[in-house]
């Protein structure tokens, strides 16, 4: 689509600018650093503006912006991302069997234990998740997106969203339990 310059600016501002919170929160959780999150979001908007002609009107603008952000993130951090992107289901399976035995009896009590954890602990536990799992947990549990929208954002089937969320939350719980043990809220092994 061809725009005049001022039309392009207006269209871009109207369509793209309302989504800064979505992008900033994702960037913040992925980088764990406000300055880096700012750089990433700024770069995303600059690229989006430059390639505005390529945006297909009527498609999900949030997904389009998100993919630009995700690619920028991967380009910047690929050097450092030495962590494996997937986790073997069986590795966590055994662990959770033991969690069931050792932690409190009812869900409510567990929640009470975990509620003592600090915001920092939860942030750190999220930060420790492998990127693929962290992404779906951020989008679903923090940003409140639907499964359909997440599937569109990360370009994968709904079933993959479900399984990544399940595994991501399991890993998260594993870290949280460790923090709770370290702080003495749960008996150590």
């Amino acid at each position, binding site marked *: 689509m061809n725009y005049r*310059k001022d039309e*392009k*600016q207006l269209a*871009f501002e109207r369509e793209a*600018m309302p989504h*800064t*919170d979505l992008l*900033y*929160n994702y960037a*913040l*959780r992925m*980088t764990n*650093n406000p300055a*880096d*999150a*700012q*750089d990433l*979001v*700024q*770069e995303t*908007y*600059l*690229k989006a*503006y*430059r390639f505005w002609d390529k945006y297909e009107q009527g498609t999900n603008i949030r997904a389009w912006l998100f993919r630009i952000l995700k690619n920028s993130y991967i380009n*910047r*951090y690929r*050097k*450092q991302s030495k962590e494996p992107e997937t986790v073997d289901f069986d590795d966590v399976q055994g662990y*959770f*069997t033991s*969690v*069931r035995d050792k932690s409190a009896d*009812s*869900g409510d009590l*567990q*929640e009470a234990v*975990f*509620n003592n*954890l600090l*915001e920092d*602990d*939860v*942030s750190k536990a*999220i930060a420790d998740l492998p990127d693929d799992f962290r992404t779906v*947990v951020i989008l679903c*549990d*923090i*940003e409140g997106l639907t*499964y359909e929208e997440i599937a569109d954002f990360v370009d994968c089937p709904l*079933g993959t969203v*479900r*399984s990544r*969320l*399940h595994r991501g*939350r*399991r890993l*998260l*719980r594993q870290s*949280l339990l460790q923090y709770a043990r370290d702080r003495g809220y749960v008996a150590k092994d």
Partner: protein
Amino acid sequence: MNCREFQELISAAVDSCLSSEELELFLEHAQKCPPCQDEYDAELTTKRIVQNRAKMVKTPVAVASAISDTLRREAAAPTRHRGLWWQEVLRMPFLKPALILGAGATVVALLLVDSPDRPEGLVLASAPGNDVLLQSFSNYLEVENGAIQPQLVSAEPERVRNYFAGKTGFPVLVRAMRECTLVGAVLNEHSGAPLAHVVYKHADQFVYIYQACWTTVKTGKQLRLREPVKSALERSGLYTETRPDGRTVALWTEGETLCAAVARLDRDELLSCLSVSTSSMP
């Protein structure tokens, strides 16, 4: 429904997106399988903790206004895609062989690019105040994303030195660096203090060297360094810092010149690039 099938539906159950048939089978299994029921409870708890402890934040005003500034500058710029300028330079078919062959092919490597249409809004090094370290980090991103364009494109150190000659008030260092190709240069000023910017390419990364007058920086008015950085520099002659995104800065001084080299390399890789001909560096 068996345990395996139940596991696959837990997240969807937690987020209340099971169909009524799925939900019926799910509840039926949960009732007769306490371990699966516990696992469902555990995932529900985990979600609640995340929701309660990791809340969305509003985009800070500073971030929103930085985005607006970037877009305003972009909108004011000429319509040509400036974004990939440095990369475009390297892709020029007549320049690339010259860059690879180095001095032997300099006859075709020289290309002077003036930027008569550079908009006023495109001021280098303005956002992070007058702190040299922050300016150099921030400028590196602008080199990467193309907001900073080369005024002079050349692989020839002599040509770049001549470009700066007599314009800066301090000697600009332009050297052959290990495994790096000189790409180009930009001259500008911050609050009246002249700045020289020299850009190299190292594999697929940029190595960017910001240069300013050391006395001006020590005076701390037009340009400055935070006290711990300045004293580290005065004590050992070198200061390095790495950002979480992998950008490393190395600061050093040579006579009247303060250099801040930034690249997405680790400290040792960056220092190794810089070590050629920088005999006065520790």
